[in-house]
């Protein structure tokens, strides 16, 4: 079985947002048939990268389940939208990085799952520059 391709697009071509902005877009899952996916989860989240252990928090979350009354057809584009919070802003530091992304996780009927994520920029904080070497 081929892995379905998840396509996520933002309404804003620059994918650059500020606090209070409305983040909106759409997603489709290509290569799926009706009834192949059990559920799909959309998350707008931030996570940390760098030297430390990864932390993450979900700002916006949607879960859509395949139901007999409402079959889940992911070939049809689905819209999402949320208002961005005041913090944390995207940051590309030396040992701490804060990354924002939209993540789609598809749960397939055979117990498998696949995910895709598209990063976006939040805020205008320039990359951090090392002033003093790392100490431990």
């Amino acid at each position: 079985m081929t892995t379905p391709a998840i396509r996520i697009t933002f309404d804003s071509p620059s994918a650059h947002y500020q606090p209070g902005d409305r983040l909106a877009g759409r997603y489709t899952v290509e290569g799926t048939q009706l009834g192949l996916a059990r559920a799909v989860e959309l998350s707008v989240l931030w996570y940390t990268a760098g030297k430390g252990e990864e932390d993450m928090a979900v700002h916006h979350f949607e879960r859509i389940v395949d139901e007999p009354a409402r079959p889940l057809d992911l070939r049809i584009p689905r819209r999402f939208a949320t208002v961005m919070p005041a913090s944390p802003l995207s940051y590309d530091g030396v040992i701490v990085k804060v990354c924002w992304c939209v993540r789609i996780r598809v749960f397939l009927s055979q117990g498998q799952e696949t995910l895709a994520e598209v990063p976006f920029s939040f805020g205008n904080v320039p990359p951090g520059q090392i002033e003093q070497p790392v100490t431990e």
Partner: protein
Amino acid sequence: MLPRPRWFVKKRGSRRTGARWAGELAEGLLSAGLIAAGAFGLYWLIYRVVSAQGAGWWPWFAMVIPVALFAYGVIGLVRMLWHRSASTERRSVAVRNATGWELPGIVARPDHPALPSVPAIDVVTDSPGIRLAYRLPIDAASGWVSFTMAAVCLAWNTLVAVFVVQVIQMHRSGQPNWLLTFLMVPFVLGGIWTLVELFRQVMLNMAVGTTRVEISQHPFHPSKTFQGIVSQTGRLHVRWLQVQLVCDEQAIHQQGTDTRRAICRVHRSTLFSQRKFDITPQQPFDATFDIVVPDSAMHSFVSSHNAVMWALLVRGRMARWGDFERRFPIYVYPTAMAKTTAPTEQLTART
């Protein structure tokens, strides 16, 4: 194909070195084993010992052991099933919803902004200043240095004293152990060194006196300028004194089985500097300075393992006492939102 089991391998933090399903299976078996052991222990205690004549109270206390095993196993099993049935994002949302309850008796303070992953400023704004709005609390870490030194000095010298007394008694009884005596020399010298350093630290704290820093406004915002005052007491001949604005990134990570903390300084600007002056108990040193938060500043950020921390550092070099540094944490908030924030649910497209 099953991966070859590796018995002697260094643990790599939270990263896996094998298949996910194998780890979950092992975790499940361990939890099931704990539950079985706890249940059997409880059964044995209740039906074999408690029912016996003259068993006393000890079986009731001993039940703590199987109950703990049972509870540990159940928690582990539930946690594993929860991890298996829900995605990382779904679990994160569940935790956020569970911890977002407003507890009775805790009143939200509307004048204090609450931003996600940005530390609250209450610890600073709760302490009013004399000349400016707020007096900054000193970082507790500097107090822990003295406490740790005192604890190490006490523990080390107590142990050394026990051995020294025994060695002296051997010499007095006419049965000297010269090997033990010579072995004790470096330990005694180490004890003397800890005493000297502790004495020096205490004297440094007493001589340098109190450092007070006040600020005109809090929290700080990028590209804004604020006023500050530094006040230093003591009896000192100061070679130089500086106030610096610094920003440190902090990352907590696992290395093997150790938890380590890495710190990297990404901003440092000197707000105030003065050379060669005296401080007397009758006339403390006072100076005002401007705090310019750079436009490119990342706001204060804190999560479980990562942080971006801002602070004012008061650093100096004294004629007799050497260098000292005192840290006063501050918080930089992102520039206030100009747009009106609508609830997420109203704007979320539903299909």
